[in-house]
């Protein structure tokens, strides 16, 4: 019989050493605790898009269910009876304005970024990231036993000088997030170009642009552009989870040099994306008007929430995403509880070291009003 110690000894040290847990919100428990109905809760904690996907995407997903029993075609080339993955790749490429062989779709950008680390990060390789950014980046690198170097943000923004001072020939990978989760701030084109120009070509620069569609600041820098200009070490991450409202279907992609895409292709699971996800993605990309309208509403909601919270005395970081980071001046956990009691769920900022901040996703107009009312009451407590 095997004892606990023996069992633990069979795991890789790298995995035992991961110092990070994904935050889990057990909404059902929370509802029970506070006597709330789950349908009455405004869930503003996961940066989901409350308007949902195009009705055409829903219709396509429904239709695809007739094929639920069979695997999607595993190949990214057109050589099967059905060619879901190849079609998705082509559609994403057209949407992003890049050749198809520079696109690598996957079941969520989180999974794609794991593949990127599996292609490049050997044990002990140095990677550079910001502690106040998307935790999925260092987490994926820790699984591959990377040596993670953290360069803190400065005024809620990526500190390009400090990044450049930290990056060396030994740096395997640099992680950027623009706009950044949880701050909503961007890296400007000028900053991005300076960074890319001064990082060795052998260092992979991953730029997570999950929230790209929500940007309206013209100074934002698009890493895809740099990739197309010949910086082959740039990898861009995109997702259908945010502006397209398809988080529940799991679809995201990398835009990268064709060589990098073919390496990911080699290590990915053959049947990795579900059939309905492919069908919905194709239809959603065929109905960009829906997405544009949703983005317009989310940007308006962002402006309104920013203004209202500012009037309540919060310091709100100007955001280019479908969420805002707000400093309430009160301990994050305390505010989280006060809002939860009122049926509003947000993300406390302490996991990023923002001890008095909350990250609040933009909801529907009604949810935004509830948030503001709950916040006013919670701040008055």
């Amino acid at each position: 019989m095997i004892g606990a110690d023996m069992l633990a000894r069979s795991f890789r040290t790298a995995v035992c050493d991961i110092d990070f847990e994904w935050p889990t919100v057990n909404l059902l428990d929370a509802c029970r605790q506070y006597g709330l109905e789950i349908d009455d809760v405004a869930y503003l904690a996961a940066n989901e898009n409350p308007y949902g996907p195009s009705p055409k995407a829903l219709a396509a997903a429904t239709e695809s269910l007739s094929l639920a029993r069979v695997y999607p075609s595993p190949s990214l080339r057109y050589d099967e009876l059905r060619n879901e993955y190849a079609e998705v790749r082509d559609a994403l490429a057209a949407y992003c304005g890049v050749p198809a062989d520079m696109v690598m779709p996957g079941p969520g950008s989180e999974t794609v970024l794991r593949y990127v680390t599996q292609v490049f990060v050997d044990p002990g390789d140095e990677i550079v990231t910001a502690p106040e950014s998307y935790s999925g980046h260092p987490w994926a690198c820790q699984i591959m036993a990377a040596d993670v170097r953290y360069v803190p943000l400065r005024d809620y923004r990526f500190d390009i000088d400090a990044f450049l001072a930290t990056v060396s020939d030994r740096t395997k990978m640099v992680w950027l997030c623009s706009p950044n989760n949880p701050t909503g701030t961007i890296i400007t084109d000028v900053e991005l170009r300076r960074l890319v120009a001064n990082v060795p070509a052998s260092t992979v620069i991953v730029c997570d642009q999950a929230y790209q569609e929500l940007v309206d600041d013209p100074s934002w820098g698009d890493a895809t552009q740099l990739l197309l200009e010949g910086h082959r070490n740039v990898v861009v991450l995109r997702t259908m989870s945010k502006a397209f409202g398809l988080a529940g279907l799991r679809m995201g992609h990398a835009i990268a040099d064709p060589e990098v895409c073919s390496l990911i292709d080699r290590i990915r699971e053959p049947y990795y994306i579900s059939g309905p996800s492919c069908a919905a993605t194709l239809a959603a990309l065929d109905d960009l008007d829906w997405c544009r309208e949703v983005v317009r509403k989310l940007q308006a909601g962002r402006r309104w929430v920013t203004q209202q919270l500012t009037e309540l005395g919060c310091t709100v970081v100007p955001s280019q995403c479908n969420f805002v980071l707000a400093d309430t001046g009160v301990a994050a956990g305390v505010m989280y509880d006060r809002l939860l009691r009122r049926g509003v769920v947000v993300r406390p900022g302490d996991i990023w070291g923002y001890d008095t901040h909350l990250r609040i996703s933009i909801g529907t107009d009604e949810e935004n009003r509830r948030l503001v009312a709950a916040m006013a009451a919670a701040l008055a407590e």
Partner: protein
Amino acid sequence: MDAVTPPGAGHEAAFRAPIAHIRDYEPGADAEQVAAATGIPFEDVVKLASNENPYPVSPSVLRAIERQFDFLHSYPWEDFGRLKAAVAAANGVPDANVVLSAGSAQLVLNLPLLYVDPGDEVVLAPQSYALYEAASQVMGATLRRVPLKDYRFDIPAIVAACGPRTRIVWLCSPNNPTGAVVTADELERLVTQVPETTAIVVDQAYREFVDEDDYGDPLALLAAGHRNVISLCSFSKAYALAGLRLGYAIADPAVCVMLDRISEPFLLSRPACAAGLAALDDDEWLAASTRTVLEGRALLTRELTALGWDVVPSQGNFVLADTHGDGRALFRRLLDEGVIVRPADGWGYPTHIRVSVGLPEQNERFLAALRRCL
């Protein structure tokens, strides 16, 4: 002269050395030929190549999926927990023994992330599910290949191949592509002779199709305290949900905690969660679908044997048969008839084909096409 440049060769950023050794995946079938050579419409092509379940998905499952369509914008938080509980209940284990995944193949990819450092060893059979090899190689494993013997896992040879650096033994029972199982005796023997720090993975993707009494049940060994035993299960086969991507592992709670730790927080799609819950609730459908598959398996075994072929007795939803001729040539001739089977030369069986069990009319069409080809 090999003019093909390996992927990544021209890129400045060095990719990891182990990646170079991974063989490219051979997709199920070359259906271009089907379309081009025959002009047979898609609906009429009989695909018996990917061990899918031919039985139509349960209507209650389809309804459950459609009910999710109002919530596709959100990650599936609530149903994830419910599904875990339902899977645990269906397997008679506590929730803490369950890890959910987007298809069991995802767990095959994740297990080496938990166990294999560069230079560690894994033991596997070359005539089994190909992903074990690729997934282990991603983490730089040294492969110890132990060939099957009479189409079955060679347990004494596997025990002999295990050493101090062996981190995973990959078993598949029933085995894809042979359909043979590891018996209770064999599994017990293996588990008691392999070091406890070696994970023994039993891929049970096809377990619902087993009707042999002495099938080795890894859950029984896990319950008996063999905490290094890990069972992989799938909704793709018996539950006919391959297109939705849903599978799970049953393992010791400590292993489950670690597997969860390296899984994406949102790995399942909403349709998959809802489908899994509804599927576990529809025993009648499962019984009817499984009966159809077992009858089809018996039919194919009988008919192919009658042709003078050697059919490996199968406990899966497919049969492997030695045609005593060129398997790939036959595969090509069948393609021209609009029937897709799987050539088995990739597993080292050049005279065999693997045929997934279809619906009765599909089986008949396959057999009719076969008679025309021979």
